[in-house]
């Protein structure tokens, strides 16, 4: 087991392991893309990568800067368009998607739109982009983020993309298809969602992290099961692949 990994490497390695072979994933730039690439190079060679602007199954020569740049369909099997990418999600053929945001609540709802008053916001963020669509359509959505109280909030200022909304039964009531948040991977732990209440719960703590640390960095009551595992850190092979093949320029993983 390598000990000289950084938290970005940890998060990417953990995320990669959740991506099953023969499935498909809608990715953005950066860490999600790295996770998908790492999965392909380890246990999931048949993982299909789809970009929202239309790129399908590229042989990525390097990290894209944009989900619509030419890398996203470099030697891909198809360079389609946004409608094709999004409807592929809508009809149930995309298994995973990665999302990000400024705020996340305990049901996995995400704010990437604004802080403060909507019409004259204190801070304006990009808005949904394709995130709301992925969160609505894909079977399992994941988030990789740093763990802090300002990010994990009791109530989002604005729900840009749906998690489980208000919990059990709420997606169905709103008319959303089956799906929803699957895993939240932070620099402290891996979290999932309670099968019934759909509230966020700790699944494993990263090596050396205490439950209290997670609690203190979370703005709402987290479900803490009696038994919590320890997240397996990146293996030597995962690190090698990440550093040598996935992100040799260290644009995403930085320097360990």
């Amino acid at each position, binding site marked *: 087991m390598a000990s000289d990994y950084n938290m970005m490497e940890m998060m990417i390695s953990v995320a990669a392991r959740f991506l099953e072979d023969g499935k498909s994933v809608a990715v*953005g*730039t*950066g860490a999600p893309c790295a996770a998908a690439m790492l999965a392909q190079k380890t246990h999931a060679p048949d993982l299909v990568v789809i*970009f*929202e*602007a*239309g*790129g399908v199954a590229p042989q990525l*020569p390097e990290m894209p*800067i*944009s*989900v*619509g*740049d*030419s890398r*996203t*369909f470099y030697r891909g099997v198809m*360079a*389609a*368009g*946004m*409608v094709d990418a*999004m409807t592929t999600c*809508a009809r149930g053929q995309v298994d995973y998607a990665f999302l990000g945001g400024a705020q996340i609540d305990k049901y996995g*709802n995400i704010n990437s*739109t604004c802080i403060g008053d*909507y*019409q*004259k*916001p*204190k*801070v*304006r*963020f*990009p*808005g*949904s*982009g*394709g*995130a*709301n*669509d992925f*969160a*609505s*359509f894909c079977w399992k959505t994941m988030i990789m983020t740093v763990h802090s109280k300002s990010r994990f909030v009791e109530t*989002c200022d*604005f*729900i*840009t*993309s*749906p998690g489980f*909304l208000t919990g059990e039964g*709420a*997606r169905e*009531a*709103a*008319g*959303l*298809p089956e799906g929803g948040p699957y895993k939240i991977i932070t620099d402290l732990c891996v979290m999932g969602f309670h099968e019934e209440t759909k509230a966020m719960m700790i699944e494993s703590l990263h090596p050396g992290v205490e439950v209290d640390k997670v609690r203190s960095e979370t703005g709402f009551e987290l479900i803490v099961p009696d038994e919590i595992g320890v997240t397996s850190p990146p293996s030597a092979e995962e690190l090698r692949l990440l550093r040598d093949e996935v992100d040799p320029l260290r644009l995403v993983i930085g320097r360990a």
Partner: protein
Amino acid sequence: MNVLDEGIGPLFMDPDPDKAREFFRQKSRAMVDKRMSAKEAVERFIHDGDYFATGGFGANRIPTAICHEVLRQGRKHLGYLGHTTTHDFELMCAGKCFDRLDAAYIVGLEARGLSPNARRYMQSGEVQVADWSNYAVAARLRAAGEGVSYGLTRSMLGTDTFKHSAAKVVECPFTGKKYAAVPAIWPDVAAIHVHYADMYGDSVIRGISIADYELARAAKHLIITTERIVDDSVIRDDPTATAIPFYLVDAVVEVPYGSYPGNMPYLYFSDEEHLAEWLRVEKDEAEFAKFLDRYIYGVSSFEEYIELCGGQERMEQLRKIENLVRE
């Protein structure tokens, strides 16, 4: 029609398909020479108060030359479609050209960060905004191109994105499933950058089409900027490749490097240094004003801008980056 719920966001454009039909009835289908300069295209087809949309994806295959002209010609009070916009949005904010906005992706430049000036503008309260998802906007454009007044999507449901949109929740008459009904949008004018086009406007895009197929069919007026104009025999040799037919097009503007500083697939990569410079200078309003004077207001054409940014030598570097030529 039972409406189960509806967003409170403003609806900027009339979704009446018969008014759109009446417009398209009058639009000429004649195959005539539509070549003109960016200056002329903006003079003729983009007016104060119009609702404007740009093709491409943020800093990929964007009609930069048209955006620059919109700033130079001082267009104001535009409506703008903030769909997958990044550098184009940054430009429109730099000129404070719009005051009505349908927002799906704005103020950001993806992995590059957020535009300080775009955020200032959006936080000023000067802009009337509705929020949407990317696909919802694509569905609005697609509905318009199909000649119907709304499209359906199951996204946006249950969220504040829906609440601040102008969508409505309807029920499927067959299954009872709920959908966000999104109103068709026929922008007054759109600009799309393509790989090549003939002088009539028949246009070919290489690589992903993003939402430009839909935008071209929704826009009432369409300005094509193109890396190069080709003889129409090139189009007719391979009609399968045509993404946009001439009868949708009002102006054809030849603009080599027209997506700069954005990426043009197969031709040149984005100029990350120049885009970073934008984000840097935007932090200081005075410095940004000087920067805009230098690069946009102080030049008379996009060609001059390319020269200022390093001209042919820089373009050659970007071509090598795009084509993965390692030196």
